[in-house]
């Protein structure tokens, strides 16, 4: 019973983090693209004058999508047309079952591993689910009975099949290094140090494999520069052209959940997962009495700085808009002051006298935080690349997949195997 309860809690945590990240990522995409293209980006939607630099926009978007009419064009395959968005979204969340987001959580002397399903064949499971991701797109594109959506689906399938091979071969190199198919073992192995000073991350021992995997991950998530399946200038918008309302929203959300999952995979396999370099669990637990007060002090300092900046803006822009928006800097300064006072209150509770249970909890929180931080960084990396690089032409895409990445992945595998056999 305990197992069922903890599993459900872990699933709820993962779902909350991913679904919470989706609107933030949509905001980051729009604001990031605006920043890269020297525009302002979304800044209009607000609740009682609070706009949070456009963060309210996703809420407005969701409301709009929820209340839109769900149009079903004539001539579509009714069942598959309805099934496709759910399939895409469902498959995009499945991969997360095997990704460890922390080491373990100690509750009442029992250690709960922070992974939903610690499968013996974790890496193969990742590949299997990635290969299932094609179905929703193909079914949606074909069932819409539209030439543009169908072309998008055809492109997506051929692209995913081509890049899956390089992805699998790149992963096999990592497999030889970590000597386990289990993702928790892969992450734990990356916690060691190489030659005493370099973290033994996947990207350090398998640099070529890491680049190949990341490129293939871009192709698998249909992100620019591999976003031919939805090339607006050629296919209007690709496989989800005929969808509206929440069915479209599911496709849209699936793109971002896929992004989060791909980032989590890159972080787990090649960038140490929940490991903090040079700061192992033992070190954190031993120095918890120093680390926690230092972290709290840093939190208070950041809050004070943010409050000061908001207060300066409030005094400079007094009465600038003449409506509710004028209240925003003052309110934000208040929020920062409250957060800073909370940090001060925690400092008053003598955090330097933390017990072993608290130290263990601190280590877990820091490791989960490190993992989430890495995932968010790679999400931003995906957005960064999308607005920096132009789209491939179709023949260039196939050339890169089959004639460049496949031989490189094979060479990487052979070299790794030889080194692993003789060293």
């Amino acid at each position: 019973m305990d197992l069922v309860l903890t599993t459900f809690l872990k699933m709820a945590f993962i779902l909350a983090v991913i679904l919470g990240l989706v609107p933030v990522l949509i905001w980051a995409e729009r604001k990031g693209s605006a920043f890269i293209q020297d525009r302002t980006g979304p800044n209009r939607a607000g609740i009682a004058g609070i706009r949070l630099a456009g963060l309210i926009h996703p809420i407005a978007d969701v409301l709009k999508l929820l209340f839109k009419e769900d149009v079903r064009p004539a001539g579509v395959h009714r069942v598959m047309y309805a099934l496709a968005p759910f399939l895409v979204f469902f498959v995009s969340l499945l991969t997360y079952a095997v990704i460890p987001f922390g080491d373990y959580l100690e509750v009442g002397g029992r250690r709960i591993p922070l992974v939903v399903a610690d499968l013996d064949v974790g890496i193969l499971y990742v590949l299997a689910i990635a290969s299932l991701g094609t179905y929703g797109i193909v079914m949606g594109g074909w069932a819409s009975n539209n030439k543009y959506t169908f072309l998008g689906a055809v492109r997506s399938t051929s692209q995913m099949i081509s890049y899956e091979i390089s992805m699998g071969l790149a992963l096999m190199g990592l497999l030889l290094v970590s000597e386990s198919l289990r993702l928790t073992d892969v992450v734990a192995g990356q916690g060691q140090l190489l030659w005493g000073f370099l973290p033994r991350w996947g990207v350090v021992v398998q640099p070529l494999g890491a680049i190949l995997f990341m490129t293939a991950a871009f192709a698998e998530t249909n992100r620019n520069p591999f976003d031919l399946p939805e090339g607006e200038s050629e296919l209007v918008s690709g496989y989800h052209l005929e969808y509206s309302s929440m069915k479209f929203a599911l496709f849209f959300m699936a793109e971002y959940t896929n992004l989060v999952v791909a980032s989590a995979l890159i972080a787990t396999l090649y960038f140490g997962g929940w490991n903090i370099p040079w700061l192992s669990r033992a070190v954190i637990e031993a120095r918890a009495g120093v680390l926690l007060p230092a972290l709290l002090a840093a939190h208070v300092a950041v809050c004070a700085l943010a409050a000061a900046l908001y207060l300066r803006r409030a005094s400079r822009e007094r009465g600038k808009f003449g409506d509710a928006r004028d209240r925003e800097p003052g309110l934000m300064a208040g929020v920062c002051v409250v957060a800073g006072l909370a940090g001060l209150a925690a400092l008053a509770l003598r955090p330097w006298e933390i017990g072993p249970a608290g130290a263990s909890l601190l280590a877990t929180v820091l490791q989960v935080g490190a993992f989430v931080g890495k995932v968010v960084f790679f999400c931003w990396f995906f957005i960064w690349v999308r607005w920096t690089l132009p789209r491939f032409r179709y023949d260039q895409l196939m050339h890169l997949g089959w004639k460049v990445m496949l031989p490189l992945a094979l060479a990487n595998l052979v070299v790794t195997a030889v080194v692993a056999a003789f060293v």
Partner: protein
Amino acid sequence: METFLFYLFGTLMLGAAAMTVASRSAVAAAVWLVFSFVCAAGVFALLAAPFLAILQILIYAGAIMVLFLFVIMMLQGPVLPAEVAGRSFGRKALLALPAAAIAVILISWAARGREAAFGAAPVTGTAAAVAELLLNRYLLAFELISIVLLVAIVGAMALGRKQEEQP
């Protein structure tokens, strides 16, 4: 719990397989076959063979059937007017599932008392166990099969190529 899941997956697998044969639309048949494969993977996982279950999804459901579906859709083109209502997923499926359930119950009834004949040996189908067998005990057969498959691929490509026009 495991017995219940076994019967659930078995019923769904047989029902989906029956729908593969019964559906008029080629695309619907392919989708039902994929569903059947996924259920078969579920049965494998319940029989303590996680490696086989993952391979079933990775190779059959993920690679081979994607190509099948792709080719069927390419050759057929748009959605046929007869397919619009999606009949292959509606009434027929409602008939096929109880039929499959009855078949599963009948088969398990006919095989009662003979459980020892099936899977009495505690085999574990983990990746390590399978690799141990394939790369030690049956290494020669494994390599020979790889060569046969390679020859078959090269042969298929040679046969499938268009004849070059003789100048």
